[in-house]
């Protein structure tokens, strides 16, 4: 058995790759793995990557060969590679490019051609019922006719069969639009693309080749995904539809477009619950697109996709793309598509649909690298454990399960902690996040920190956000509703007072609020009641955040004082 302790990688039999971070060759190995494996976990010492069919096809679409993958793994590995894995890599990579979707012939403009290069695969395709239904017969053995409208669905069907389709059918250019990036923003700041943003755009467009113009760019929160979107618009000079996660996000996109491009207000439209503007650049939400009056009725706003001659569609946070949008996306495969996300991991496991319908991953950069270069703030997570006062402790022990959570969440001692933390961060912009309105109102009043809840009207919300961004407000109190929709570029401290462990996306998003670089490091505080259910929830959060690579510290909040109090007789 081979053993080279100086190497940084352990290749496991199940396809996962364990990379030692403290190894001298770590960076080389990391850059190599990023080309064909997905980063699954990145805790402090060992990062876990995984090789999947999709990750290999993503790599193959970027021109990486199986031999190169295997040779690299051998070069960096501590132990022998599992032989079956080597065969698997060769077999899977070889599948990419075996099926190619070609543009229509001039004599048959309504039909694409599906070229299956291997006879055995062609026979499989020809005998698959779903594939037969999506095609319109064969020109000859291995060359099938596919109606234009089935461009997306045939790719999905073949991917489920294990054969990724290389889409070279080309795109419609869409109505032209003169867009360029400003060198100086409207506010007067210097502006230029960062090197990795240039690289991302180049990787997506594939130098204008027929295999480019669709795909996903993966960048961590705060790395400037929006900027990549704007630069793509400028590169394509075409009318663009942008799909974002919520209204606030839509407005942020619009603000960024106006701030950093030559486009004017009359060229950029908002298509949301309040406004239905369709302009050369239109920004909308997933919610409005998937809105319908009842579960039986049609989606009201899907017509937006054909409302203009879009040459480019940008899917922001593509990992949140809802199922109906997948369906409509399958029908508009002739449009150029850019997916933007911080992670390809979807809670619903539909990564394959992202690959088929939006396109393969074109660019990825490790956030640690951006952190090292100062493009993303270094985040520190601190869990502060605070005890309950003696009477509350007794009440907690006698309470029902649901009530227990509330008692722990609303522990009054937490306010002392908040006061101390606000003193600690007098020069920082602080978000106080909570779940229970009573507690948040108390905090807002006590610390003079305006409160934003679900009931806060959008104009008031935007006004508060604006004041916060401008520095007129230093501390903002927000309820759970603010998790997704807000974007506070300058917040670098968050104090979470209450809230159960949410989905992985929710946690990432919440932390993402404070990742924008602002000169100092970002700190995320979770104040939890010691030895309570809340501490268990905090443990789950701890696992998730440490897996993401964040530093996590636990501080006991003045236990001595609490012990003193505990030793006092209760009924003295």
């Amino acid at each position, binding site marked *: 058995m081979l053993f080279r*302790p100086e190497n940084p990688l352990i290749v496991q039999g199940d396809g996962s790759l364990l990379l030692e971070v403290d190894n001298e060759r770590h960076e080389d190995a990391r850059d190599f793995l990023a080309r064909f494996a997905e980063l699954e976990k990145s805790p402090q010492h*060992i990062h876990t990557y995984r090789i999947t069919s999709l990750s290999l096809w993503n790599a193959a679409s970027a021109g990486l060969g199986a031999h190169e993958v295997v040779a690299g793994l051998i070069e960096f590995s501590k132990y*022998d590679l599992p*032989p*079956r894995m080597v065969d698997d890599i060769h077999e899977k990579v070889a599948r990419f490019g075996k099926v190619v979707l070609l543009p229509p012939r001039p004599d048959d403009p309504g039909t694409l051609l599906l070229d299956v290069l291997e006879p055995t695969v062609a026979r499989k395709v020809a005998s698959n019922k779903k594939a037969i239904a999506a095609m319109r017969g064969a020109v000859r053995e291995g060359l099938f006719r596919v109606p234009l409208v089935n461009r997306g669905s045939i790719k999905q069907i073949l991917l489920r069969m294990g054969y990724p389709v290389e889409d070279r059918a080309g795109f419609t250019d869409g109505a032209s639009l003169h867009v360029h990036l400003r060198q100086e923003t409207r506010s007067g700041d210097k502006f230029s693309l960062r090197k990795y943003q240039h690289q991302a755009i180049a990787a997506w467009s594939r130098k204008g080749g027929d295999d480019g113009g669709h795909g996903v760019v993966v960048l961590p929160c705060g790395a400037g995904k929006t900027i990549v979107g704007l630069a793509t618009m400028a590169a394509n000079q075409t009318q663009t539809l942008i799909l974002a996660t919520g209204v606030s996000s839509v407005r942020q996109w619009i603000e960024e477009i106006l701030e950093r491009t030559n486009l004017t207000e009359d060229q950029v439209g908002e298509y949301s619950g309040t406004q239905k503007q369709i302009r050369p650049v239109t920004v909308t939400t997933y919610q409005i697109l998937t809105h319908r009056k009842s579960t039986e009725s049609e989606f009201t706003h899907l017509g937006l996709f054909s409302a203009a001659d879009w040459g480019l569609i940008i899917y922001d946070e593509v990992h949140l793309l809802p199922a109906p949008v997948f369906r409509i996306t399958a029908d508009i495969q002739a449009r150029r598509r850019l997916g933007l996300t911080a992670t390809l991991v979807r809670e619903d496991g539909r990564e394959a649909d992202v690959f088929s319908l939006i396109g393969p991953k074109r660019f990825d950069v490790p956030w640690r690298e951006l952190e090292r270069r100062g493009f993303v703030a270094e985040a520190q997570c601190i869990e502060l454990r605070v005890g309950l006062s003696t009477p509350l402790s007794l009440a907690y022990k006698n309470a029902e399960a649901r009530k227990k959570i509330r008692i722990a969440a609303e522990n009054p001692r937490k306010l002392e902690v908040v006061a101390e933390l606000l003193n600690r961060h007098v020069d920082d912009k602080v978000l106080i996040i909570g779940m229970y309105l009573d507690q948040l109102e108390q905090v807002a009043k006590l610390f003079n920190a305006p409160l934003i809840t679900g009931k806060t009207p959008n104009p008031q919300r935007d006004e508060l956000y604006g004041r916060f961004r401008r520095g007129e407000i230093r501390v903002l109190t927000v309820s759970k509703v603010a998790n997704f929709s807000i974007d506070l570029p300058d917040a670098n401290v968050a104090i979470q007072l209450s809230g159960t462990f949410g989905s992985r996306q929710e946690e990432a998003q919440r932390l993402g609020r404070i990742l924008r670089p602002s000169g100092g490091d970002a700190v995320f505080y979770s104040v939890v009641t010691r030895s309570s259910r809340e501490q268990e929830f905090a443990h789950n959060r701890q696992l998730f955040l440490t897996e993401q690579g964040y530093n996590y510290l*636990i501080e006991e909040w003045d236990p001595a004082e609490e012990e003193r109090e505990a030793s006092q007789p209760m009924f003295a």
Partner: protein
Amino acid sequence: MSLNTFFASLPHEILVQYRDLYLDGERGSAAPPLPAGVVTLSDEQVTTYATDLATLFADPKWVRRRMRGMSRSAHVALVGLLHSQGIGGGTWLLQELTQSHGMSEDLWAEVLHSLGTELWVFGNSRQSPPLFYVIPARLAEVLQHQFGRRLKLQGTQTDEEIRLSPDTNYRHPLGFSIISFLTYLRQNRIRVTRKGEIFKKNLEELSSFFSSLWGSGDEEKILEWHLDVVQELGLCCHREGFLVADDRAIEGFLAAGPDARRTLYLSYFLHREPLLGWLLEELHRLEPDEWVPLQRIRTLYRRRYMGGVFHRRYVRQSYYLPPSGFYDPNPPLEVIQLAGLLESGLGSEGSYVRLSELGRRFISGEGFQELESREGIQFMVQPNFEVLAPVGLDLSVLWKLGELASLQQVDRANTYTLSRESVREGLSTGLRSEEALTFLSDESATELPQNVVSTITDWIGSHGEVELHDALVLSALPTRAAAVRKVLVAEGVQFESLSDTVFAIPREKQETVLKALQAKGMSPAPSVRRHDLADALGTQHKLPGRLDEPLDRNEPQRSSFPVKSLVMLGAPAAEGGKEAMARRGFRTGKVGANAVGADLSVKPAAAGAGALLKLSPAKTISVVKAAIRLKLDLEVLYPSTEESDPGGLSRVTPIEVQEAGGSSFFSGHHHGLDREVEFRIKRIHGIRLAT
């Protein structure tokens, strides 16, 4: 037996035939020729002919000339018979030669009979074919010298590239896999039927759990192999319908060290199949990159195996009913392949095998320790409570980690998770609270993350502040206390004085202490009194000493005795090695029917590792030969080698296995007598590899 003795012991008719065939024509014998038809020779004649013939046959040049004069078929027949250790059943040998080399059985019979006329091959009946074809042992030696390499396993001569077979997946070092397997058994409930079979669902779970370490395809067989090994070595046992890891046996196994563990594995292999020793050695003799065609191994093994069968029938005149597959026994490659000692390859002409690197190190013993645990390999505790333990980690550390963290995945690096439950489970099985964090921080390659330390401290809470201990309390009247203490000291029983007249002793020492007390004239009641303070009767029989009485300051060892050790006293010392393991094997009911002293009413089962075994003569010979090959000492239970030898269990360094007049014996250096003695195989009552 020398050549001279061999010729001298031949029937006179045969000796005369030898004389006529070889002495008359080749060299003039000093003795006068006998009249034709006379078959009775004088002692002097026998001595003369035997000496001359021995001189002739001992001359390699002369033998070579004779061999050169023979046909190729004759060579093939001789080699075939030599492969089967000089004895082959008549029908079988003819079929074997036909199957391996073509030609008809009749033609082979002719070849063998022509060798018979030249007195190289004999038969034992006048049937055609005879019941057995035989090359006498001394002649076989002469021929073995001539055929040398052809008798051994030969590597392939082909230049073609032999590709490592895809079913030869990554092979883990034995210890890592076995300890991971035992950890799984420890942490998961594996149900077994009354017949000792594992439930299918559990088997599937096990198989799937270990698939990434063992590779896909062979999981079920590798699983069976692991189950067999751990049960055979007494590392796990059946308890209340579940298969459970035996913590004490495992402690002994880990304390034994890599070399002793290697010996245990070897004895397991030999126990499974005595010819494995020979096979492994043959494979080890080849160059590391040299492949052997599978077919060649099969032929060689088949012949050797059948030779053993016919040897039993011919020499020992016992009818041995062979297992199924009698005429085409498969070499027991699977058992060593599953252990990762063998790898297979595919060439254009079929399958090949060779020893893997692990196999070579295992056989030679060189570097085996390094394979089991490598210097500088440590586990890593991550801030997300994951612990990664790579191959090469010290096995004791690997096992201890499994006590504290839950095993999530086995692979080149095992993944464990620290959780509240796993930590508390570890503490409940004897780990002290302060040990848990110390172990993690000492053995981790990186500093323990602050959040992990803080959380584990929280989980540990107040564990261990108050503990229960299991012990026997021995009380005495003040007048007898001193005598009792003396007995305990004399017997070497570890004890703790709870007061001047009350002692805590390990439960396991109950019998020893009782006997010792009786021998000293004290007659304690053999039953243990239940001390119930709530019981009126109990209060009448209060312990005579007060537990809170200060201890005698003149005996400082009492007060320095750690309370925790009360639990440890009962455990057999980890250094007990195989002896202790064998004893534990007995306790857990895995007592082989062939283990010396076994309870024959117990259903026969595999003997525990290290047990003294009463084996069949053939298996005894195999063990002795294996010990010679591997340069290991034996422990032999033998009545007496001579008048001055009282007999009993002796340590012997075996030198040579010999056969004479149908009985087998081996010579070896008797450590007790400090000289070379001979042991008749049949008289050996028990044998095992010495520690």
